[in-house]
């Protein structure tokens, strides 16, 4: 959250020192990594020195492969997540507000949420093939559950007093949803997105590893198969940056929309 505050300040050395202090354990690990690799304490194939991985990362970036694959992964994850968000919020909010919808979806959610969605990848390959559509549907199905459950629970938890307060001031039942229920449930709904986001990357990445068709998961598994372990780690670093970036982005959106919390 305070990352935004950092950006507003100028770049001065004390701030750099602060950042250094906050990540120095990470720096030690990275230096050890480089040393272990350079001294060949671990075989190159298992853990190349960090510098080799960075060089490979730059190489892949300059050749355009990195961006192309990163785009594919990001595209599949985000489109799937967007679809899940729309349906998840609608189903979740309606389940909390309507007995019939709850009667219908509650058993489905109870069964569906705990299923390790990745185990269904072969089924999805049979049904929808290995292309973008198949991956996007898988992401949408897998991330639907946390979005729906969080939307439902946060809608159920909207205080009755808030609804009563609106009703006494003349809000009709029809307008209650937009005027009170949704704004009151918004923090929980956004929490659902935050839980679903890394899941969308995991599903995309694994599907790409299993089924190919480009993307960072495919780039990584290709590295393993061609004994280029630097490429394996380069792909991992790329998806890590994407994960951090998306998480920061969602946090920023959250702090903007929910500045009142």
């Amino acid at each position, binding site marked *: 959250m305070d990352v935004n505050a950092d950006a507003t300040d100028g770049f001065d050395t004390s701030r750099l020192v602060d950042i250094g202090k906050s990540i120095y354990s990470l720096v030690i690990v990275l230096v050890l990594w480089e040393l272990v690799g350079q001294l060949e304490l671990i075989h190159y194939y298992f853990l190349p020195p960090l510098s080799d991985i960075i060089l490979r990362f730059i190489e892949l970036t300059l050749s355009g492969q990195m961006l192309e694959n990163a785009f594919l992964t990001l595209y599949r994850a985000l489109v799937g997540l967007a679809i899940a968000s729309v349906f998840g919020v609608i189903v979740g909010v309606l389940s909390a507000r309507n007995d019939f919808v709850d009667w219908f979806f509650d058993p489905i959610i109870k069964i569906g949420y705990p299923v390790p969605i990745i185990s269904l990848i072969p089924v999805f390959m049979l049904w929808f093939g290995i292309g973008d559509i198949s991956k996007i549907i898988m992401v949408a199905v897998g991330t639907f559950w946390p979005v729906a459950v969080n939307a439902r629970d946060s809608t159920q938890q909207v*205080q009755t*007093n*808030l609804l*009563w*307060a*609106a*009703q*006494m*001031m*003349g*809000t009709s039942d029809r307008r209650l949803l937009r*005027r*009170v229920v949704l*704004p*009151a449930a*918004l923090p929980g709904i956004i929490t659902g997105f935050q839980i679903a986001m890394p899941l969308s990357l995991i599903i995309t990445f694994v599907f790409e590893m299993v089924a190919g068709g480009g993307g960072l998961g495919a780039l990584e598994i290709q590295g393993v198969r061609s004994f280029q372990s630097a490429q394996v780690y380069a792909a991992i670093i790329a998806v890590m940056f994407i994960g951090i970036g998306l998480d920061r982005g969602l946090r920023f959106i959250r702090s903007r929309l929910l*500045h*009142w*919390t």
Partner: protein
Amino acid sequence: MDGRVTISELEKVYGEGPERTKAIDDLSFDVEGGEFVSVVGPSGCGKSTLLYLIAGFLDTTSGTIAVDGEPISGPGTDRGVVFQDYALFPWRTVFENVTYGLEESGVPKEERQTTAQKYIDLVDLDGFEDKYPKELSGGMKQRVGIARTLAYEPKILLMDEPFGALDQPLREALQDQLIDIWDDLGKTIVFITHDVEEAVYLSERVLIMTRHPGTKKTVTEIDLDRSGSREDIVTSDAFAQYKNAVWKSLHEETQTEVTL
């Protein structure tokens, strides 16, 4: 005068079968227009239930509640509730909370702003218009709650232990502010409290309810000379006598509670 509440043979039952509990039984009571009535009773006597029935949030099991002779059916803008836990909309600023009711009744923007500002000033919250509820103390939140309810100008104010969560000095300040508002605006006020002193200090009549199921036990008329300061009033003999009478009546009820 408008804002008369007529409660006849009111009964409220929660649940069904073995879970069935009678919260309110055969309660008849009238509140005159412009009157300030407090309701006291042992905890669990259904006094909050009574308030929410008058507000129309809950349905009566039998009996009727009428406002100015018209039986109520659900919540309406002729009545306004001030909640114990404030129930402010946290995503709206103080100003937006106060304009909410005016927005809902389609009042034009300019008029909304003038009216909201008037009531914000009335509860001494000028300067806090753009704050969010989380930035306010409990006392300030409750003043927003009062301003929000006054702003759409209901005839009847229903207050559910509004100052229960506040400390003594703050509670006294808000009590005096409420009396001023009542003097100025002439609303009918039904005020739920478990604080005998608060009930006697504020109201013209105190309705004491029996323990479970709740019904009317006694009604005490409070005829105090309120021209003096708070100190004059609370140290007067009359005040002590009223307080004793209400306390005794209430104490009989809490005694039964202990023996049960």
